[in-house]
């Protein structure tokens, strides 16, 4: 089998890029409310951050627990640059502030990466965690730079408007973010095609052999870490422009954890996986957290299930099904898929009803024992409701186990058929 891209694939990917660009430009026309513009801006920022994180996790096999250090410090430097240089003359154009953030992220990655990338694997993970804690603890100690509890705020509408763009309206900032996102995504994709990007994959898979062919894995990791720091800083700088305030939370462990969680959920093994993850991240932070107070519990549970059953993330699930559909095997699986979807949603429903009932007892007990859940009135003081829910959950889990086995069986059958067809086509005269 040849791995060289054939012309069809190349054109296909060009159409994909065009569609991505057009979608980014057209989105604010379709969703034009204030909330959706804010969310779209955050998605752009998150896409850059998650892709830069995946440069470490997916491409380099470096599990970092402190990526927010680089986005966060980039954001701080960017907002200081905005305050210091954009008002004076000669003024720094506001559009270039994210680049300052990028350079800052790169500088800090050079500094900290020198320590962290000396190691790989588990030790690397622990050191990044330690450094993240160090920076977060520092941020509360040095109010001159980090602004203490209140953070540092700025004003992006400074200086003379360039070509009539003042960055007053949020949609102008969105287009700036979209432009940066597009350029950064293209650049990061291009990075995966460079010799350095390929070497980084090799370092992930087998550092010893990389050493044997004459490269220093440590230096490759360090270089990739610096590049990832640059993109992370750009994302931080865009965040600073978007929110016009930066506080210590942006370097916190929760932020780093979110990057890790959603990059993995989106899929670290495919380039486009973190983009899905970033979109989900913003949706979860803005909408899911409105919907339920227990959203982090759902997130953690989904994450654990994903690690156990689909370690390639959503992107790998999508690609598996695309491959199946391309070979025309989807139709045979549809009934099994239907059953699976039914049993999964049954389980999810029971589980979330249980969680919401416990939460209701804990937090909203003052509002009476009755909880409205999807049109149902659940009485948290009635033994009948509790035991009914538990019985329902038990049945749902049993039926999920049954449908999952059935589905796995058919899935394997279809894949076997697909393999056989491929072999037959390959050996046919």
């Amino acid at each position, binding site marked *: 089998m040849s791995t060289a891209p054939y012309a069809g694939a190349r054109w296909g990917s060009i159409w994909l890029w065009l569609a991505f660009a057009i979608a980014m430009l057209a989105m604010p026309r379709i969703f034009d409310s204030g909330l959706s513009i804010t969310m779209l801006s955050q998605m752009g920022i998150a896409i850059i951050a998650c892709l830069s994180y995946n440069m470490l996790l997916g491409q380099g096999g470096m599990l970092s627990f402190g990526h927010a250090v680089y986005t966060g410090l980039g954001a701080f430097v960017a907002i200081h640059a905005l305050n210091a240089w954009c008002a004076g003359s000669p003024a720094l154009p506001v559009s270039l502030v994210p680049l300052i953030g990028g350079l800052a992220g790169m500088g800090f990655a050079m500094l900290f990466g020198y320590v962290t990338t000396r190691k790989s694997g588990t030790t690397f993970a622990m050191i990044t*965690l330690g*450094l993240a*804690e*160090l920076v977060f603890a520092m941020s509360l100690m040095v109010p*001159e730079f980090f602004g203490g509890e209140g953070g540092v705020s700025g004003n992006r509408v400074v200086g003379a408007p360039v070509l009539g763009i003042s960055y007053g309206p949020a949609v102008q900032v969105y287009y700036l973010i979209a432009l940066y996102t597009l350029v950064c995504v293209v650049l990061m994709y291009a990075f995966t095609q460079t010799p350095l990007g390929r070497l980084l994959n090799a370092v992930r898979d087998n550092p010893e052999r990389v050493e044997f062919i004459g490269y220093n894995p440590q230096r490759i990791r360090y270089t990739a870490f610096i590049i990832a720091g640059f993109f992370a800083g750009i994302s931080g700088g865009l965040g600073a422009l978007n929110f016009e305030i930066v506080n210590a939370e942006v370097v916190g462990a929760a932020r780093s954890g979110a990057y*890790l969680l959603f990059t993995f959920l989106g899929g670290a093994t495919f380039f486009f996986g973190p983009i899905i993850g970033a979109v989900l991240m913003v949706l979860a932070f803005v909408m899911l957290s409105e919907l339920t107070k227990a959203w982090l519990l759902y997130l953690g549970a989904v994450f654990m299930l994903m690690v*156990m059953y689909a370690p390639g993330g959503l992107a790998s699930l999508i690609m598996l099904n695309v491959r199946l559909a391309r070979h025309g095997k989807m139709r045979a699986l549809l009934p099994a898929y239907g059953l699976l979807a039914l049993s999964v949603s049954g389980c999810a429903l029971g589980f979330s009803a249980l969680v919401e009932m416990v939460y209701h007892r804990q937090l909203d007990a003052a509002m009476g024992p009755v909880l409205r859940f999807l049109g149902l009135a659940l009485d948290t003081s009635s033994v009948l409701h509790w035991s009914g829910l538990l019985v329902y959950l038990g049945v749902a889990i049993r039926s999920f186990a049954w449908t999952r086995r059935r589905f796995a069986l058919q899935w394997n059958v279809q894949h076997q058929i697909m393999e056989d067809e491929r072999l037959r086509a390959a050996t046919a005269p």
Partner: protein
Amino acid sequence: MEFFLISSLNGLSYGLLLFMLSSGLTLIFSMMGVLNFAHASFYMLGAYVGYSVAQLAGFWPAMVIAPLLVGALGALFERYCLRRVHKFGHVPELLITFGMTYVVLEVVQLVWGRIAVDFAPPALLQGPAFTLVNHSVAGLSVHWGAVAPAMCNAADAALRIVCSPFPATRGFMMLVAITMLASIWLLLTRTRVGLVIQAALTHPDAVESLGHNVPRVFMLVFGAGAALAGLAGVIGGSTFLTEPAMAATVGSIVFVVVVVGGLGSLSGAFIASLLIGIVQTFAVSLDYSLGSVLASAGMAMAPSWQGTTLARLTIAQVAPILPYLLLVLILIFRPRGLLGSREG
């Protein structure tokens, strides 16, 4: 003098508590190659379960029941989650324990609420274990338990008396930690089970071919590690504060301990635990800043420096970052940790 004694005892007890956690973490790591991110979560679960059991049955039963429950949960987690991702490699193993921290944190907030619960030690452990009385004439003396307030109040102004109590919970913490460590050591070196565990650490294949169920040994070790964390949680929770943030606070320190001591080295973890426990305890009670030290040495700082953060920060204020600074320094100058044997 009494400040030094009491502080070192406090530091020692905190260090021993850290070692209760880092020993389980190290055992699990050297056996399975998994750095259990959720270890501090089991510590927190121990504190909360201990709190609930203590309300139902009293503190002493809680000290037995809570670790058993947490240990069983740990064993189940190993059996049904960790073992499933073992074939995918170390990163997914680390990730699933990372996901577990989210789930445990949220479940704790779900069941026990978002604010600290009032987990008080039993009456026996409340109050000081002994009190050091420093009398400017009679010298230093030790009194068991609390001393009468009259003893600490000087009758005339010429006498100077300082009473420094040492809390009984701290003493109990040291006692439990040392007992536990001794019994683990005996278990590992003097019993059949211990020998199988030690053999499974280095030669899992050979142990398996001798007819031992190595995955079950892994499960038991993981469960035992979680139970130790749970026990530490009951004691730590009743001594300090039982709150949802306790896992994050202790967790990152314990990881620092394990890396500084050298991954997989029990004795390294012991030394690093005591070191960090003592350094942190002393640091939080030292109220000197760079400015005040220079001033007392007779040197004045340049006016532009006075009042800046660098001159103003006291050692007590920088105490939280000291363990991480130590971590970075160790990694620069001794990358395998204090007693680690291999470079990772």
